[in-house]
């Protein structure tokens, strides 16, 4: 109850700091909250914010969905078949340790500067956290529960469906949440490095032309997307481990 009040209080403090910063650095560098609000109204009236928002969201969600579709089955297979998992895991970990923005020039050479390249850059960033978390979730199965299920006469298939997968589910969602955050970063990176478009494109345009009020609007938009997506997944996560609450 009180925490909500504290949070609103902290928000007020941030607003004060923003006003002070605007005053100190000069309005051309840090716009006032009011100027930012007016810029947002202007951008919405022109329709530029909506179209950029839509463009970014489309590539972001496409790349993310593709990663989810590939990473979860692959992670389940790697966890389910130990030989496959042991064979592939070194390469998965190696790829995960490589800064994947390093692949952007190669991706541009192969896929060009359009939406395909952007989606692939997002896919590449999102894939590994989901894959690795799914894989460890499947492997983190409680062997004692498996023995209990075996003792009860459950088939391999039923053990997998009723013990292994439900146990892995919270791990998968954690991976999806981490992936969603990285995916958003890669969306902006992709929009800056390939054909300039979307919210990332607007960042570049307004940043380079010192239209800081507009620039701030775009930053806030990106923050909102990030917060909404990760909070939604955090909510799913909490629901999945509801049973843990009382322990």
């Amino acid at each position, binding site marked *: 109850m009180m925490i909500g009040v504290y949070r609103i209080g902290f928000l007020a403090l941030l607003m004060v700091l923003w006003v002070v910063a605007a005053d100190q650095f000069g309005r051309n560098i840090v716009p006032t909250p009011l100027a930012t609000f007016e810029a947002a109204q202007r951008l919405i009236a022109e329709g530029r914010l909506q179209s950029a928002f839509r463009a970014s969201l489309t590539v972001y969600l496409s790349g993310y969905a593709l990663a989810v579709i590939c990473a979860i089955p692959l992670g389940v297979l790697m966890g389910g078949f130990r030989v496959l998992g042991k064979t592939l895991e070194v390469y998965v970990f190696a790829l995960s340790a490589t800064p994947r923005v390093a692949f952007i020039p190669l991706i541009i050479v192969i896929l060009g500067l359009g939406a395909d390249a952007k989606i692939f850059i997002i896919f590449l960033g999102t894939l590994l956290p989901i894959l690795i978390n799914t894989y460890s979730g499947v492997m983190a199965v409680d062997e*004692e*529960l498996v*023995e*209990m*299920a*075996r*003792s*009860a*006469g*459950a088939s391999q298939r*039923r053990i997998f469906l*009723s*013990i292994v997968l*439900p*146990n892995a589910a919270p791990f998968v969602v954690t991976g999806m949440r981490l992936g969603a955050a990285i995916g958003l970063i890669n969306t902006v990176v992709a929009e800056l490095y390939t054909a300039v478009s979307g919210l990332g494109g607007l960042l570049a345009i307004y940043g380079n032309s010192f239209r800081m009020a507009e620039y701030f609007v775009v930053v806030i938009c990106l923050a909102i997307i990030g917060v909404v997506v990760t909070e939604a997944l955090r909510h799913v996560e909490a629901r999945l481990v*509801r*049973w*843990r*609450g*009382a*322990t």
Partner: protein
Amino acid sequence: MTGPRGNSTGGASDASPAILFDNVSRTFTTAGRRAAVPAIRDLSFTVEPATFVALLGPSGCGKTTILRIVDGLLQGDTGRVEVFGAPPKPGPDIGFVFQNFRLIPWANVQDNVEFGLKSMPLTRAERRERADHHLELVGLSTFRHAYPGELSGGMKQRVALARALATEPGILLMDEPFASIDAHTRELMQIELMRIWTVRRPVVLFVTHSVDEAIILADRIMLLSPRPARVIESFDVELERPRWTYDARAEPRYVELRSYLSDRMRELVVSDPASEFFGRDLVPPRGR
């Protein structure tokens, strides 16, 4: 209380034992240790139908291995094992109650009790009815929608007991089921188990290292040696049932058996080179 259900220990004729161990050995190779560790060696015993047997022995003497072999979760390296005349196979006819409950944490009490029933050719309604019946038997009907994390240790073990009983197995394996429950609850659980057992009498193999628990519950006590496990002695417990209707602990037969078994247990431990109590003078002199 008995209900319309038949006794499913069936199949076997009265002459054949429910469980047969004939010269069974099993060793384990543990990672890190070069030598194989024998858990049981040349173990032979039989258990008659409708008998409650306590396997009494010091901790870590391979008792759990015996239960896992009876359940078919593990095979012996050598020797012959038969359960109702056939090699053991895990399934609904053998119930297993584990020391650490092993309830599915994301499933509620009802679903946990129905878990074993799903391996049987039952309709959803029949499963539900059986689960209800056994939840009532252990007194947890009102908790059917609770999650295991919301229950006390004693309640968790009652759910695990209901799960094992729900398939109405011919054999019930219990691996120190009350060891992690506080002393007062444990005593109540023992009475509860005796009461339930009188309804339908499956064969029970009850592993324990508590002399009192063995005497109060069992028809027969098999005293096992430290690793590798052998049956050293076997006793019939001649205390009248039901044992919760009188103070069995005050009976001369109980006192005598208890004192004898406690001494034997201690002897086993101090004469076991693998024990931390090896060679210590902890056994009272006999015959004074």
